[in-house]
């Protein structure tokens, strides 16, 4: 029993902290959010830390780190919140390739992910939105040694910044095929979706043609591969949400001390205190459910699945409600974009349904508990 970070984790944390302070200041993040700076402006710098290969074994150019180590990185990224395709590519796509890719696919693709040269996005959900195989309507039809893909993918994270896609398709056999394709292949078009969400886009596939060998999950149903990848990725996402919420807490606490009204710091009022306390309670609930789930996953312990669903539910809800409470602390200041709180509010909404909403995870948890 030891709830402290390892020395290596502390180093990772320090590295990420440095990166944030240098490349992803609040001003930069606000500018990226407003479209005034490119999202990938510091991609090389980020990639150079090696974090994109955190989960990728050394033989494929990565660090071969544990989920818990990777979570330390993502907690720091979440504090920004640093947007961009780091999660889609370095976590989700890497895990899909590791779980279901052939040796050739791993050898060809993973080093590029680790170095940041290739940027992957996963096109899974569609207009009929949901995180189960039953929602996949995009068709992949065999044409000799090729497959021809038609469909529209919606609310795809980070596709506009990607170089490569992994697309969940319905094969003629009825099972799910995860197809790797060049984002700039003919028949593939991506379009950013504006609104109160970060990095979502539409991907249309119109007779997009790829070789059969691009199917990552050729040995089994693609959804099984994706499911295994998502179970792990979800935990990294939770850590990212924990990081975001911990930044929201710091902002709220500081504001409670420095903002004065009625001739005293606003944090002297019990009503304001209770909003800050709500934030820290959400934070610690998310933090410790996530940490335990990470540990259980890394150690393959009993109850790892239950812990993962518990963490995912708690982290998504906590980030969402924690931002609401932080807005209560900040009142007018909270909605001033340059102040930076709305970056988190927006991110908390963006991630609420990502890889399954709290409601989805609750239902899966009920199932895992044998209910």
């Amino acid at each position, binding site marked *: 029993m030891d709830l402290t970070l390892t020395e290596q984790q502390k180093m990772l944390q320090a590295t990420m902290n440095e990166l944030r302070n240098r490349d992803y200041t609040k001003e930069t993040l606000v500018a990226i959010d407003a479209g005034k700076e490119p999202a990938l402006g510091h991609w090389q710098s980020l990639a150079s830390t090696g974090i994109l290969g955190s989960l990728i074994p050394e033989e494929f150019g990565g660090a071969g780190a544990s989920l818990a180590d990777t979570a330390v990185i993502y907690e720091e990224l979440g504090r920004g919140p640093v947007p961009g395709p780091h999660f889609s590519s370095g976590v989700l796509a890497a895990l899909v390739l590791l779980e279901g890719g052939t040796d050739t696919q791993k050898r060809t693709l993973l080093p590029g992910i680790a170095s940041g040269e290739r940027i992957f996005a996963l096109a899974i959900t569609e207009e009929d939105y949901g995180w189960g195989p039953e929602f996949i309507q995009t068709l992949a039809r065999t044409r000799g040694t090729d497959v021809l893909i038609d469909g529209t993918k*919606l609310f795809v994270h980070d596709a506009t910044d990607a170089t490569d896609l992994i697309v969940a398709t319905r094969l003629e056999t009825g099972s799910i095929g995860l197809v790797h394709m060049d984002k700039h292949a003919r028949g593939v078009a991506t379009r950013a979706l504006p609104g109160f969400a970060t990095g979502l886009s539409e991907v249309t596939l119109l007779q997009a043609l790829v070789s059969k060998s691009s199917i990552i999950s050729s040995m089994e149903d693609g959804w099984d591969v994706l499911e295994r990848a998502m179970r792990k990725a979800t935990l990294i996402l939770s850590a990212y949400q924990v990081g975001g919420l911990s930044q929201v807490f710091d902002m709220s606490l500081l504001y409670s001390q420095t903002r004065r009204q009625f001739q005293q710091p606003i944090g002297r009022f019990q009503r304001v205190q209770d909003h800050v306390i709500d934030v820290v309670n959400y934070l610690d609930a998310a933090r410790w459910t996530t940490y335990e789930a990470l540990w259980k996953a890394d150690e393959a312990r009993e109850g790892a699945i239950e812990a993962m669903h518990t963490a995912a539910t708690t982290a998504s809800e906590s980030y969402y409600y924690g931002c609401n409470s932080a807005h209560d602390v900040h009142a007018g200041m909270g909605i001033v974009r340059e102040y930076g709180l709305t970056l988190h509010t927006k991110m908390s909404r963006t991630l609420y349904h990502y890889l399954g909403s709290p409601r989805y995870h609750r239902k899966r948890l009920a199932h895992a508990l044998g209910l």
Partner: protein
Amino acid sequence: MDFDLEWTPEQIEFQAEVRGWLANHVPKLKDHADPAALTADEYALQRKLGRELGAKGWLYPAMPSEYGGGGLDLGMSMIIEEELDLYHLATPPYYDTGGRLGSASIMVWGTDEQKQYFLPKILRGEIRTWQLLSEPESGSDLASVATSAVRDGDDYLINGTKIYVGSNHGAEYSWMIVKTDPNGDRHKNLSWFMMPMGLPGITVEPMDLLLVGGERGAASGVKNTVYFDNVRIPASHLIGGENNGWEVAGTHLEIEHGLLRSAVRSDEMLDRVMNYARTTTRRGLPLTDDPDVQDSLVDFYINSQVTRLLHFRNFAYRAQGKQLTYEGSQAYLHQKRSALSKARSILEVMGPRALVSDPEWAAENGHIEVHQRASIVEQHPGGTAEIQRVIIARRLGIGREKREQPGQLPSAENQGN
């Protein structure tokens, strides 16, 4: 008890008149989800509608006709509100809280001369007015405003900064609170001005906020910083007496804290969410077949009914001449907090479609995405939820034997909107 809004034959006749008139005069505007998207031309049409309503006395129907109001009773006023509501409009049909709150305050606190000078402009829709309250260091604690007004002969010189002000198509006047006695005791050092916005030394600079408010009657538009640099204003524009501003604020805040909303406004968002759920399928089945969706919608529905009923109660009480104490803030608080709960219900039902404003994929033409932001933004203007709770506690007498009394209001007949 009788919850019916039964109209007399005269009122039914009036209703037909209003309906007919509106059909001929309400301009067909594009349905902008984000009110900030309103163009200058469209805005001009809205102002025109405001002036036309004003000319008939329908812009401020319950205000005395001698000052340009309609001199109508609450029933007639409500009919106008109801009919406008069918167009998702209110009186006035553009952002004019300075006019609504300023005119009520002038009715109570202005001199006869001031009433004659200011009220007709406002009530007839000739001018529109922003309200200027918050400052960088003064939000919930309104009494701490620092913008100063210093007497200089027949004028005052104004210096300071106001934030979260107004809207995006300008205003002719601003209704503002300032400090007139830098050494005066708290609550005895404030005054209100009706400020012509064309005076030299005034600079308006847009703020970048989560939601940029718009020009519609109901929009909670707080979005400019207004700088005052030695602005010279005639003393005749000071309303309610020098250093008497806290008393005037009592009137202003009383109306702002929950008396703004009419009894009849429909819940546009409820209609939209129900419509979405009924017309959307999921795996071939109506979304409404999903028990989780049903739960979310029923939560939304019940929240909406409670907000409606609390406002309805307040309206009815006012109509019967009953003095409201905590009820205005209670209804306002419920409205604010249930907006958050509704936003979550919506997100549960619609998923990411609630979050995007993309023309192809946005739910309900983007109105939902705007509401997701608006639900957060609307927690704060007009007094935060915490301020409403402060008022409720004082008015109920929680922890105190003497209950705080409400601020002075215009007579019931003059509060129709």
